[in-house]
């Protein structure tokens, strides 16, 4: 019984971190349909900015987090205007090459700026203590991440399915020319959505740092992880990414408890199985 509770609890916490680090990619790659391998680069920008704000400027965790998100968006918007606007029109392979190049630039820049050691973001007292659940303890940080993940999925659902912005975005993505002819300023919609993707990447980078520590090579180390969550979830579906992240998180955690040697096999096995049965992912809209 305790084992089952442990698996559920650790699995949900791990899955929620997977969701948070991948949701930004689900927005840029899933919704905007640009193969954005630079997603990890934006998460790294967020992590490095948070580390810098916390360690060098002496800010607390929350101001540092705000600084990371705003700073990343401030870097992402000009990038969207100057670079990504051209990348949207590329073929998939060119998008891959262009965005991986961007990733290398971010890695080199962070390496130059902060070095190649770990870039920790110190947690505030409220998040670093442990909460006693009776049968075991759980770090307060994990609870915060679970709540935050729920907040993000709810917020995105409201934004994309229930607001005028969401309708315009879906229209612009589906047929840019016609959306434009209807008076939707698609450039601005794209820029705002890209900014949202970058902000979510930064948020995920900072909040996920307890389990996926940030260093200059972060984007390459976890790139496959981000891509798998989005691919299993299905392109274009944020809810799909959410389901995929939780499912993969719980599966891998269960394997770690029951057959530790096989945990990685279990994780990739599930990914292969899902994609073999449903190549478009769990909730993919695009065939």
């Amino acid at each position, binding site marked *: 019984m305790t084992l089952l509770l442990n698996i559920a609890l650790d699995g949900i916490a791990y899955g929620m*971190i997977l969701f948070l680090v991948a949701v930004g990619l689900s927005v840029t790659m899933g919704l905007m349909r640009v193969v954005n391998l630079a997603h990890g680069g934006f998460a790294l920008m967020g992590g490095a900015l948070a580390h810098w704000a916390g360690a060098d400027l002496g800010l607390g965790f929350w101001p540092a987090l705000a600084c990371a998100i705003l700073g990343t968006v401030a870097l992402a918007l000009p990038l969207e205007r100057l670079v990504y606007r051209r990348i949207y029109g590329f073929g998939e392979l060119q998008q891959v090459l262009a965005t991986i190049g961007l990733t290398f630039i971010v890695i080199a820049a962070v390496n130059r700026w902060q070095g*190649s*050691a770990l870039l*920790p973001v110190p947690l505030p007292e409220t998040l670093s203590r*442990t909460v006693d659940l009776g049968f075991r303890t759980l770090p307060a940080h994990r609870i915060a991440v679970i709540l935050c993940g729920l907040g993000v999925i709810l917020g995105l659902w409201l934004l994309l399915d229930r607001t005028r912005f969401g309708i315009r975005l879906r229209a612009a993505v589906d047929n840019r020319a016609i959306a434009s002819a209807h008076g939707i300023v698609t450039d601005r919609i794209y820029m705002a959505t890209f900014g949202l993707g970058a902000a979510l990447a930064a948020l995920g980078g900072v909040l996920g740092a*307890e389990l996926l*520590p940030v*260093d*200059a090579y972060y984007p390459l180390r976890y790139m496959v992880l981000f891509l798998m969550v989005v691919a299993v979830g299905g392109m274009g579906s944020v809810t799909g990414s959410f389901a995929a992240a939780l499912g993969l998180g719980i599966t891998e955690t269960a394997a*770690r408890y029951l057959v530790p040697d096989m945990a990685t096999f279990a994780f990739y096995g599930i990914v292969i199985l899902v994609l073999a049965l449903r190549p478009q992912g769990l909730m993919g809209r695009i065939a």
Partner: protein
Amino acid sequence: MSRKPLAALAAVTLGLAAGQATADEIRVGVVAPFSGPFALYGTQFRQAIEAWQATHGTRAGDHEISFVYKDSGGVNPDLARSLSQELVIRDRVDVLAGYVFTPNALSVAQLATQSETPVVIFNAATSAINAESPFFLRTSYTLPQVSAPLADWAYAQGIRSVVTTVADYGPGIDAETAFSEAFTARGGAVTDTIRMPLSTTDFAPFLQSVRATGPEAVFVFLPGGPPTFAYAKAYAENGLKEAGITFLGTAETEESNLQALGDGALGLHTAYHYSAAHDSDANRAFLAAVEGLGDDAAPVNWASVGAWDGADLIYRMVEAAGADGRAAIEAALGAEWESPRGPVRMDPESRTLVQNVYIREVTRNPQTGLLENAETGIIATVGDLGWKD
């Protein structure tokens, strides 16, 4: 297939090296990662060598010594071998040095033997490497050298049951074997052996399992960087410390990422051959020399001290034997000196240093406010315990 040309090249090089014996410039080629995720090693090696040359000059006996650096990237034996070959043949180096990863070090065994070039390994820590060539010398340590004394110490502390948790790859399994053998030989029990996937950074499930088993201590071996960081956090957060399960590690609290671990690292026990907090004049001189390089100085850890002692050993070899590879090895064997880590001796048989292994505990230095590995005692003075000829 490539043996014949290599032998021919080696013969040519030998001729060149012999011709150079009277020349007064000795060149040392350092092969290490200077770019990519492991670039910190290269930086530490270079800084330790620069610090050594800044304090000891560039002359050893009648010879002028210069260092050439080559970037091997990560684990890449083919590249390491071709760079080493290029150094020996084109740059005409008399000594090779560096080598962070075991496969990279192994790849130059034949080259070293055939060209009679001494290779001073600054890091690669698998016991078996030195058996591959009589021209291999090692100024780092080997995994059994620190893991087995840790097991003895744990038993002496009254710990009778241990669960081992190691990353599922070569060095992790070596460490598990060395620790388990030493611990059970004393009469302790290893109640579970958990091998964790190498890429894992979520350790809560493994540590909850350990907690459920309820041993008196948990032994850990992980590669440095993100996994170690996440493990130390998970150890603190899952209440193992409160449950009285002692942490037994080796390199996990190394200096370049120690500050990042934060308060969760306080009280972690490790057995290792070097702490930057080692209390000796030799260590203070070493630290001052590296700090003297300026603001770009990287944190000093075992990799730095391996290169510093490597430079020390190379100077001894060159002073005694110049460019003569065989004589240089003869001169190195049995050499003794005071290293920043404590007294060391180059074991003539295993060609790895015989050195002190210290038990350390992470504490916060009251003066600087920084975390450090405070040495609480010497638990053994040993050579390579994993050596099998």
